[in-house]
């Protein structure tokens, strides 16, 4: 139909880390040799059956995979349209999908002989997963977290500290995820010899977007098999929230070459797309930050703007480069949900299904509430329930209390 379309949506990136014009390796020279080493180490690991075997063992017995594919019967009845399934990533050890990626990276770090692990975190889920695996493998762990996020995600800060990690509150900029990533990169440049930077999403310089995607793709691979087992066919649509885009990419990637599957990513629209938000596809354009070219929120002069979202995990002014490409190729549709819509979804899901979701996947649920009723009963829709809401309970309780008072 369209001669511009690639033969496959799954063949990227090229050997320079590009997805179309996106991606790349925009880093300081100090980091370049290490990034090339990492690329090699990851390629070696990927080709090593022993690495895969060891990882599969931990995924099963430590993380608790496979995560269930659950038919959300009451939500389906309530919305009166598509048949809705949840991919239950919130049941993983540590409470989100983040652990899939961290396990993989920590095992690569071990192969590279690195003893000091750094990470950035927004909601704290990536930080918790990193702290957990560092505890498990006896590695030093330092987590950079914006001071605002330290406040609003207290339960996760406490968890990280209990796990033996050092949490560094970042006091610059808007003191959220972007600033945490800047500080992590500054630490990395300084301690490059012994430090492994465990990036929490499908962003950063090549090979990170590819490597994190590969580790997260188990979500989609399992979903495909599980759906085949219960329904005997492919799902008709997939929905996932997008911060940097790792839980979404993990679910989407194995389905990209199945044209019958509609795919929806949900960005955070904050107060609304004409106000403060964190929807970089809806409100941004191509630029270069944190090692890659991708869609970013910025002003006319190329200065990066702060994201805003009720959800600390979506509060990032960029998105992984492969998503930017999938958007331009029109393979994935990027929607957005506001803070208020996410809160409504958070409340609805808690009451209807007895599952308190994290505020991040509550954004995905918010769009399911629009997409599902417009589709027939035999339409199979899978939502990535990327994390559980324990970490958000104090914050949401406070918002609801203020709303009433």
């Amino acid at each position: 139909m369209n001669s511009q379309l690639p033969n496959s949506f799954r063949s990227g990136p090229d050997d320079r880390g590009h997805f179309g014009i996106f991606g790349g390796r925009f880093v300081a020279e100090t980091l370049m040799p290490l990034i090339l080493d990492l690329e090699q180490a990851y390629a070696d690991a990927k080709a090593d059956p022993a690495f895969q075997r060891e990882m599969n063992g931990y995924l099963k017995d430590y993380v608790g995979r496979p995560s269930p594919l659950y038919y959300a019967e009451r939500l389906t009845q309530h919305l009166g349209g598509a048949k809705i399934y949840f991919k239950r990533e919130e049941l993983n050890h540590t409470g989100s999908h983040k652990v899939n990626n961290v396990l993989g990276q920590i095992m690569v770090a071990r192969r590279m002989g690195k003893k000091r692990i750094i990470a950035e975190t927004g909601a704290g889920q990536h930080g918790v997963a990193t702290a957990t695996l560092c505890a498990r493998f006896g590695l030093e762990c330092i987590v950079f977290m914006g001071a605002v996020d330290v406040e609003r995600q207290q339960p996760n800060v406490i968890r990280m500290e209990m796990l033996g990690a050092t949490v560094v509150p970042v006091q610059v900029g808007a003191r959220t995820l972007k600033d945490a990533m800047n500080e992590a990169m500054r630490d990395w440049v300084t301690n490059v010899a012994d430090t492994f930077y465990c990036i929490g999403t499908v962003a950063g310089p090549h090979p990170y977007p590819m490597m994190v995607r590969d580790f997260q793709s188990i979500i989609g691979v399992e979903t495909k098999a599980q759906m085949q087992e219960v329904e005997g066919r492919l799902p008709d649509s997939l929905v996932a929230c997008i911060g940097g885009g790792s839980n979404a990419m993990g679910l989407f990637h194995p389905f990209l070459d199945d044209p019958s599957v509609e795919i929806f990513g949900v960005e955070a629209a904050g107060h609304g797309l004409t106000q403060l938000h964190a929807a970089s596809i809806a409100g941004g354009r191509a630029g270069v930050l944190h090692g890659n070219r991708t869609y970013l929120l910025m002003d006319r002069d190329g200065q990066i703007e702060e994201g805003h979202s009720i959800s600390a995990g979506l509060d990032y002014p960029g998105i992984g480069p492969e998503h930017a490409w999938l958007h331009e190729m029109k393979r994935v549709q990027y929607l957005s949900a506001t803070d208020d819509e996410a809160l409504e979804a958070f409340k609805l899901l808690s009451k209807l299904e007895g599952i308190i979701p994290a505020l991040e996947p509550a954004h995905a649920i918010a769009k399911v509430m629009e997409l599902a009723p417009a589709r027939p009963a035999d339409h199979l829709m899978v939502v990535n329930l990327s994390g559980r809401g324990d970490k958000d309970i104090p914050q949401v309780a406070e918002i609801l209390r203020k709303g009433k008072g």
Partner: protein
Amino acid sequence: MTTRIDTRFKALEAEGRAALVTFLMAGDPDLKTSLDIITALPAAGADIIEIGMPFTDPMADGPAIQAAGIRALKAGTTLHKTLDMVAAFRNGDATTPIVLMGYYNPIFIYGVDQFLIDAKQAGVDGLIIVDLPPEEDSELCIPAMRAGLNFIRLATPTTDDKRLPAVLANTSGFVYYVSITGITGSASAKSSDVGAAVARIRRHTKLPVCVGFGIRTPEAARDIARHASGAVVGSALVDALKASLDADGRATPKTVSAVADLVAALAQGVRGAKQAAE
């Protein structure tokens, strides 16, 4: 192509001394004061002037230069205004090389081709772009060379002999050796380590090798100048500037002289170096 940078290093070689390379942020603390400062630099003893292009997310910079960038952005500095400032400087100084230093995104958004035309016209001689390693040469390095601008590359302690040729391949003007692994304004390297590193780079290139990061005093500048073609001083100047501001971060009558005085002292250090070696 010969740029003002090439000409300046030839002249310094004839004089038998190293260059003092100064770094300050464009528009810090405001555009007018910033122009006054850079205008005062050559007479104070700066041989090459680096001007920072402020960016919201300076991933390789420490607190001092981060804060300078925030002051500059608050004062309304844009890449256009930075180029205007260079043009204004050039009206009164036809020979002192100007190097713009910063991050790629503002240039990418300006538009690479237009930026190169405007920068050349304003009188810019070279570019140092922290987040463009050789792997991304097609973005800006090659077009800049074609436009007659030097693209000055950073070499670091992690740039080993295997990698140096790739780093040097499209470098011109000079090589900027970052003497530590780290961000600006942090630790300083031992002078003996720097000497060895410069010697290593010189085995691969005939280009001048300047050294920066962690040089704060005239003595340190002199030590570096013994080994290298130039000493780059940034955070110390930015700190001196900041110390001269009032409580609201605005320029005072002392601001220009605070920077110029430190530059003069650093220049003495650099100029003393070769005599010490002779």
